[in-house]
């Protein structure tokens, strides 16, 4: 049996050296190894979406991704969005518009929403619902999340 794998990934815009067992997931690496607790573990089966992070520009499940398979890839969590205007606009409208209740799904929701706004600067309600359909929320009932995404898009489009 070989030991942990050493590799480098681009994490939140910085080169990050990592050491993890070959079968450790990205979620475990981020949370336990690197102390980045933005992505949440809600089911560990890829269903709830609380661990969603951006990998090479696409929202994916950190719990279903082997950390070592991210060698050479770009992984972005909320920490990596800094002054990104679209993400800031999303964060603002989530926070102000009633889209955040317990907040456990919020980080994953924001990642999915951020991708949508990159593809569609003026999404319809149904487009937002589809884009967020892989992020479960049990508190909000979704409507105010959809509205927050649309409000953020409108503001960014101005």
């Amino acid at each position, binding site marked *: 049996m070989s030991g942990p794998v050493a590799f480098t990934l681009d994490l939140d815009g910085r080169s990050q050296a990592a050491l993890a067992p070959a079968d450790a997931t990205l979620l475990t690496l981020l949370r336990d190894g690197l102390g980045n607790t933005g992505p949440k573990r809600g*089911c560990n089966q890829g269903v709830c979406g609380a661990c969603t992070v951006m990998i090479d520009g696409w929202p994916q499940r950190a719990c279903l991704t082997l950390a070592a398979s991210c060698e050479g890839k770009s992984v972005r969590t909320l920490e990596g969005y800094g002054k990104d205007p679209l993400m800031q606009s999303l964060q603002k409208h989530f926070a102000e518009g009633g889209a955040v209740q317990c907040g456990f799904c*919020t980080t994953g929701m924001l990642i999915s929403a951020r991708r949508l706004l990159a593809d569609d600067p003026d999404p319809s309600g149904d487009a937002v619902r*589809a884009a967020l*359909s892989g992020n479960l929320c*049990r508190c909000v009932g979704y409507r105010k999340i959809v509205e927050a995404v649309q409000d953020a898009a409108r503001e960014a489009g101005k």
Partner: protein
Amino acid sequence: MTQQDETLAVGKSLPKLENLEKVAGRAAYIADLVRPGMLHGAILGSPLPHARIKGYRLEAALAAPGVVAIVTGEDVGAGLMGAFIKDEPAIARGKVRYLGEPLAAVAAESEAEARAACRLIEVELEELPAVLTPEEGLAAGAPLLHEQLGDYIKIFDSGSEGNLCSRSLFEEGAVEEAWANCDLVLEEVYTTQAQAHVAIEPCGALAEVDQNGRVTLWSANQSVFRVQANVSESLSLPMSRLRCLTPHVGGGFGIKMEPHIQPITVALAMKAGRPVKLILSREEDFEITRARHPFRIRMKTGATEDGLLLARECEVLVDCGAYADDSPGVLGYSLLMARGPYRIANVKCHGKLVYTNKLRFGAYRGFGNPQVTFAGEQQIDEIARQLDLDPFELRRRNLPADGEPWFLGAEVASNGLAQCLDAVARVEPLAPAPLPGRRRGRGLAVNAHISGLLGTGAIVRMLEDGSIVLNTGATDIGQGSDTVLAQICAEALAVPLDMVRVASPDTDGSPFNWGTTASRVTYTTGRAVLGAAREVERQIKEQAGHILECAPDDLALLPGGRVGIRGTDREIPFAAVSGRAHWAAGGPIIGSHSLVFEQPTLDPKRAAALGLPFPRIGVFSFIACLVDVEVEEASGQVRVLEAWSAVDVGRAINPRLVEVQLEGAFVQGLGMALVEEMVWDGPRLANPTLMDYKIPTALDAPLDLHSIIIEAPEPDGPFGAKGAGEIGINPVAAAIANAVRDAMGFRLRDLPLSGERVLDAILAEEAGDAA
């Protein structure tokens, strides 16, 4: 007193205080906490639903890599916990009563090591026959879950015997005689399913013991005080040795109100002598926490031909699961609400709660009300149909007059149900389905829910600079109570919201708060906050009177944290007041207020009650819920197109947060109505994963979800407010079932209204038509 009508904070949709932390991904939940030297815990669940524990062999597990401590029933003494009946040990002791029940727990250097070591624990079990349904539990000769039931301490004692955990019987008027005066009597049996809470955050806890043996316990919870009480009882620790705290909580809905694995975590930390964090997997969260009670409901309602409701009888049989938990309360509360928000002179509601070898059922948003409402509001709808009356009209004819009490006699001081009905009655008529093979229908259901119950307190302190700290001990589970209570406090003291800091619940420093449950925080804790703020106001004026050399009565609080003499421009900032208090005279300004909800549930002159779990219950909120559905004939699948919830919340302290409560509750109710169901294969929960247990996604919830706020102020509510947390879910399944009836012509009495059930009914109709 703020003298203007215009409010500063109340009635404003202000963003929640902690949202910026949450959208940055920086808010810490239980799984995110780390303590120096922390170990990780894991649980060994029972492979059998009912067995006697004959012994443990722990050597192999103790020798496994990373293992520091193992806890079993032999480590936890004789303590038992339970809100109503003290029947539950911290960890299975002597017997195991449901499949998955924790038999042992391991603390190790890593979670993987702890989980691996669990498999090395050998527990010798002597299998006992299991009770899997309430009917089996009541049968003669049924195996007993709790042989010692008679000896348990009972806070609430109602007929506990054999496997009967409790029973309740409430009666008003003379039901048996009343049936003869009815022109129409309907009697049907309805069943509802077990629903999982599925808070997106699984349950977890972190415990640490100091050198004096004092425990600090963080956990996902809805009440640090219930956590403290349960750990204290089950581990026989004085409360003074337990400090319970809360990080951010990722949703509750009832699952985090009573204990989950806090006692086990504390026992592990005590044995290991190091901090231990135990986070449940999603599967464990399904299998060993709690769920909504399945009900079997026989509902009978009688009316005159002109649509006056004369009598109702409701009989329920409720699955308790292995431990009483909040179940006796759920049984009693459901029966208290089963009459519905109508004037019905003759009502009898009764039922039984039966222990079974399943996970404990317990508190879940609605607390038994959604179940009985599913039955009761379908029957009201059916009466309207059979009498050829508009469903709004039938309901309006039976609304109680102002001042009429609730079933059994509780005072109803505010009732906006008529306005709720008017609000949803204004909705445009439903257009027929545009596509062939689909049919549309509209359904209405109404409901009431309480907010109230038990004790609560608040402490408002003024800091040296005149800003404010509010401490209530109420856990904000994300619904926004910190913000709402801060708004109440800010309004009362005429300060901007950012001058109010809300302290995190801490059993060492916060006043008692029974919990974030029963839709109660805004109403009861809000009252305490207002009381404490008034006391602070009094002290401010007293101090300011000395500084400004006037009588306190001549002073008024001015917006922005100032106090001044009415009708003059002589005013000073709170900082001046606080400075004098801190450094010169009077002492720091601290106001506190506490209360317990005291109005009686029962008026013995009016009604009789046996087994009333809540002798003092609460004030009443009201809702009218209208739903449009579309049914696909090919599959039987029901889709909700649009929905309106008009709710009387007395006063919306933060309207947007009220709306979110209603919308979230609607979608959780939609899940209950259409898809969610915990399924057992014998004693084994067959779908304990989010792969198999599904909740609505953004595509399943209607976008057109309308929240309409009605304000019939509650006289003693803070600024008139009453609760909004649960009521939104109560009428949803009934309204959807009524809409399906409207679309399809048949009525379904078993939840969920799955495509399969609807298709079976379509085929039965077709067969009936053909015959």
